[in-house]
């Protein structure tokens, strides 16, 4: 009884949130409704007894994916009205995906099978926790799918870098091993000066002898202005 009430509560909020995600004017609000929706989906997983999935949904989707969404809508000030106008073009693709999902739902709800002889998943006994039951299956019975996941993640990683990484030629980076290997004698020079005499008589002092560039290495040396170490500051 209580299970039913919680189910309908979570399900109703989830559907309402999904509606708000699509209809909200402010994209940041849309993402926040999406997050609320994720929480309710996690609640539904809990009702189904899948506590590991519920937590992972929160950790991965709310804690990571939605953060990326928020970053994007906050940082890239995309013109969302312009995007809305593209709706007509993408509508057929969206509809196709919707139909596929609907078909899957019908198959699940109607308990229909496309291929005969498929083994029903056996429910784990109450003495094994949800997480452990998953662990016993993923890495042995479904090892190929698991490795495929790894490859998908690799592609995602490389794709993200290829798409977003831009080297800025003027940027300087810290080279920590070089910095640590540096000796005081490389950069500093002690001079004995007469009272009233300048450094000019001794050939002027050079600052720094090796140049600052040695420890903060430029990505492209040609793009930088000539090094300061060539200039005699004292002269």
């Amino acid at each position, binding site marked *: 009884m209580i299970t039913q009430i919680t189910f309908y509560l979570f399900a109703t909020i989830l559907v309402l949130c999904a509606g708000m995600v699509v209809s909200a004017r*402010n994209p*940041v609000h849309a993402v*926040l409704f999406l*997050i609320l929706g994720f929480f309710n989906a996690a609640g539904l997983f809990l009702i189904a007894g899948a*506590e*590991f999935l519920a*937590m*992972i949904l*929160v*950790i991965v989707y*709310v*804690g*990571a994916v939605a*953060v990326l969404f*928020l*970053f994007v809508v*906050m*940082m890239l000030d995309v013109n969302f009205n312009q995007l809305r106008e593209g709706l007509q073009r993408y509508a057929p693709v969206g509809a196709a995906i919707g139909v596929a999902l609907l078909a899957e739902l019908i198959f699940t709800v109607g308990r229909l099978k496309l291929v005969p002889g498929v083994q029903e998943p056996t429910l784990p006994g*109450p*003495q*094994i*926790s*949800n*997480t*452990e039951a998953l662990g016993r299956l993923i890495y042995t019975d479904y090892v190929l799918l698991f490795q495929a996941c790894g490859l998908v993640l690799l592609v995602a990683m490389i794709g993200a870098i290829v798409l977003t990484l831009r080297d800025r030629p003027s940027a300087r*980076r*810290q080279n*920590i091993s070089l910095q640590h290997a540096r000796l005081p004698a490389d950069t500093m020079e002690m001079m004995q000066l007469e009272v009233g005499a300048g450094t000019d008589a001794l050939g002027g002092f050079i600052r720094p002898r090796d140049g600052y560039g040695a420890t903060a290495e430029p990505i492209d040396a040609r793009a930088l202005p000539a090094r300061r170490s060539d200039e005699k500051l004292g002269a």
Partner: protein
Amino acid sequence: MEQFFFHTVAGLVVLTVLECLAILVPLLMAVAYLVYGERKVLGAIQLRKGPNTVGPFGLFQTFADAIKMLTKETVIPSGANRALYLLAPFLTFVLAMIAWAVIPTNNGWAIANINVGVLYLFAVSSLGVYGILIAGWASNSKYAFLGGLRSAAQMVSYEVSLGLVIVSILLVVGSLNLNDIILAQRHVWFCLPMLPMFVIFFISALAETNRAPFDLPEGESELVAGFFVEYSSLAFGLFFLGEYMNMILMSAMTSILFLGGWLAPFNIAPFTWVPGPIWLILKILFVLFMFIWVRATFPRYRYDQLMRLGWKVFLPFSLVWMVLTAGFLMATGMLPVGSANGVG
């Protein structure tokens, strides 16, 4: 009486509410005295007295501050998104509190002794980003925005190594239940065999809670106060209290994962007389002192150094250590088979 509390629905609800208050009220008091304690410790380290005017030894200082904050005006900038602007501190404070529902204070004593306690803690701590990100965006101020983004990138960077540290502990324990994790440390606390992971966890915890030397999101000298620059009154107070509550939470997590939680340091007579919750509190206090000590000692990190430490040092190191742990347990046949309580 017993009939009411344990066998009727209303009784169970009342009991649960009382249990929650039994955690929350001491927690809020602890936050108030942590603020006071931090100022006193910092004062002692810097040869000052710290707060000493309000009440004996300044003991009521935090309450005076709280009353002052309560009566201040809540300024909402005209360009801000009002609902989200107020949601951000609310969210930060709620998230800092709800993690405590699963912390075990004695053998089997937790408000909710769930199977996936560690995952719950990990999930709640991964949500902490939102309060800061929303605050930074909703204020519609450049400093706040910059601070919010910095902070979000920082927190997610250190979360990965936090996760890997937790996984290597799970390898030894074989259960996600926090109580099982503590019971697995009966013979030796995990801070000894996994000392490098303990260090990484502690430093990552500093970064997760935006504490010095990783307090770049606030960075008074460059970002004036970071993501909460526009906040005033108790809206600011909730951020402030949330940060301290997160500190206590991270200390509790460190105690549970590495310092044996409510276990006595040695399983012999004089130590076992002291009840478990006292040991837990003592351990939390020790880790909290480390937090404050670090703040008094180290200068602030630079942002590129912070990212380098997270991605190029902690991530590969904790990954390699995790694999080595697994390999070692595999080779010596010390892996836990099944879990301690049957249901893990």
